[in-house]
């Protein structure tokens, strides 16, 4: 996969580092895309999500209770930002403990469905995040292009991937 992981400077802080992904051929992150696609219709919720992420980065850290876990495959750390049943939006991310979150894309989640597999758009964006999680895990555990800072609060290493990797 060809992509770059970037540090979301306006949201990262002393409590957690927030990243997102710029896919090949794009100039904006997956998270920018999520905000762009949903801002007009769900501005209130977008504002809540933005402030929640700011609080995670700067005040509270990425507590597991702020997320819905196990949205992807076993052990891939794919989750969604917690949303109450009356909310409309779902944001997928990859969470590594209290300190690191990689924000992906998301979208409208109908009250009629229980899981992302039941919606075409959510299937597309969730699958995309799962694929990135798989590739990132491979680059952390197999190729060691990515690793952890000494204090384990940041990712360090290579962030721009121009090859297809060899994800098994």
């Amino acid at each position, binding site marked *: 996969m060809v992509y*770059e*992981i*970037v*540090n*979301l*400077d*306006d*949201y990262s802080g*002393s*409590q957690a580092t927030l*990243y*997102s992904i*710029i896919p090949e051929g794009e100039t*904006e*992150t997956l*998270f*920018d895309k999520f*905000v*762009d696609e949903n*801002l007009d219709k769900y501005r209130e919720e*977008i*504002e*809540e999500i*933005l*402030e*929640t992420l*700011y*609080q995670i980065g700067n*005040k*509270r850290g990425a*507590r597991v*209770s*702020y997320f819905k876990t196990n949205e992807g495959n076993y052990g891939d750390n794919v989750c969604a930002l*917690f*949303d*109450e049943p009356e*909310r409309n939006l779902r944001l997928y991310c990859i969470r590594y403990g209290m300190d690191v979150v990689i924000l992906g894309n998301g979208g409208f989640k109908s009250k009629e469905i229980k899981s992302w597999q039941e919606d075409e758009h959510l299937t597309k964006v969730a699958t995309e995040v799962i694929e990135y999680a798989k590739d990132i895990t491979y680059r952390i555990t197999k190729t*060691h292009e*990515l*690793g952890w*800072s000494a204090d384990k609060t*940041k*990712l*360090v*290493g*290579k*962030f721009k991937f121009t090859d297809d990797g060899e994800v098994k």
Partner: protein
Amino acid sequence: MEKSNEARKYSSPKLKSLLEQISPQKREIIKVRMQVSARIEDLLEEKGWTKSKFAEKVNKHPSEITRWVSGTHNFSLETLTEIAIAFGIGTPELFESVPKEASVKYELVVKYIFPAITNDLVVPSSFMKFFPNWHQPIKSIAKGGDLKLSTSYTYPETAHN
């Protein structure tokens, strides 16, 4: 391989501007409810209660507790009072930021075959560093048995305000 490179810092003018446009009132509400939810979660951990056990105490479904600690729930004063009573604290205490303390306990067990008859044990300085109170239980081993030494350290985390 030494890894020191950090990710490129990325700032989207739109995301930055959106954050700045959120009303101070809304920002404060989100900040406080995340703070309260973190406090509830910490109290659960402190008490050693599972969400299910706590749910029983406040007569709610466990999924309700999951919402309470999710940082997204707007609490009513009635609910906060109910939660505080269940924890045995005053309601205002739910709004306090208590630095979380992580404690590490070291324990060393010295097996004595014969009863120790003297306090004049030679203790290396490195041992003293970790077990400054080693001399306290020495009398208990004068009668024979194991000498169990332990010490704890607490590391207050940065207070979240």
